[in-house]
């Protein structure tokens, strides 16, 4: 079973991702308010599950924040910050699989509100 398949299977079986892996995902109050006020909360939850169930060796911790753009006013993104201790090559593979899974699971007009970054610790 590929990572992507594993993630999709787990979502469909409604396994709470963070509980299954023993990882708590902290969502900032700003990000939560932004997501809930714009109908993005369900998408946020799906992406969280895709991250946590993708490859447990990659993800050491995750938090979700609302970020603004230093040069463009009124542009906000809900950002998943994934802390990882893995090598760049492994994270690139994880990232590619995650991108493909998000493309399959999240409506295209909603995808533009989310970003994913990796914090190499």
């Amino acid at each position, binding site marked *: 079973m590929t990572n992507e398949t594993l993630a999709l299977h787990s979502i469909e079986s409604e396994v709470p991702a963070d509980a299954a892996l023993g990882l708590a995902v902290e969502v900032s109050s700003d990000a939560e308010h932004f997501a809930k006020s714009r109908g993005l909360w369900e998408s946020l939850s799906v992406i969280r599950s895709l991250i946590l169930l993708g490859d447990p060796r990659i993800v050491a911790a995750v938090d979700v924040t609302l970020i603004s*753009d230093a040069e463009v006013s009124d542009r906000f993104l809900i950002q998943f910050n994934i802390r990882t201790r893995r090598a760049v090559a492994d994270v690139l593979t994880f990232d590619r699989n995650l991108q493909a899974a998000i493309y399959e699971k999240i409506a295209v007009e909603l995808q533009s509100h989310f*970003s994913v970054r990796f914090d190499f610790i």
Partner: protein
Amino acid sequence: MDAREFFAVAERYRSSQVEAERRTSVGRSYYALFNVLLGVLSGKGVIFRGTPDDHYTLISYLTRAGNKASALTGSSLKDLRPERNNADYDMRVMINAKTSEFVYQKARRAMQQFESISPADLDLIVERVKAIP
């Protein structure tokens, strides 16, 4: 100039011992991808305003063009934008060599993904983008 030349600068500094150079690498990786994509669509008649909002307009066009490779390229550009902003504006965070390497590799991959789109599909993408209100 061909914005792809920015990749050479990004490659040179991606593993530098000097953080300022790693930050330069992150910025050049992002702008190589952004400028090439903008240039391709502009060259086919897609209108951009020449304002900072073009970054998000481009991301929106790529992701809504009904083509998976285009959408994934746009998604990469969106993920790399905050990395570039951190590199240029946030002096509190440390940009380590793994981060600058990851950003460089992700931008190169996105570039290759976009360049894999056939001319016929690219024309279709442009047609759809021009129809976006």
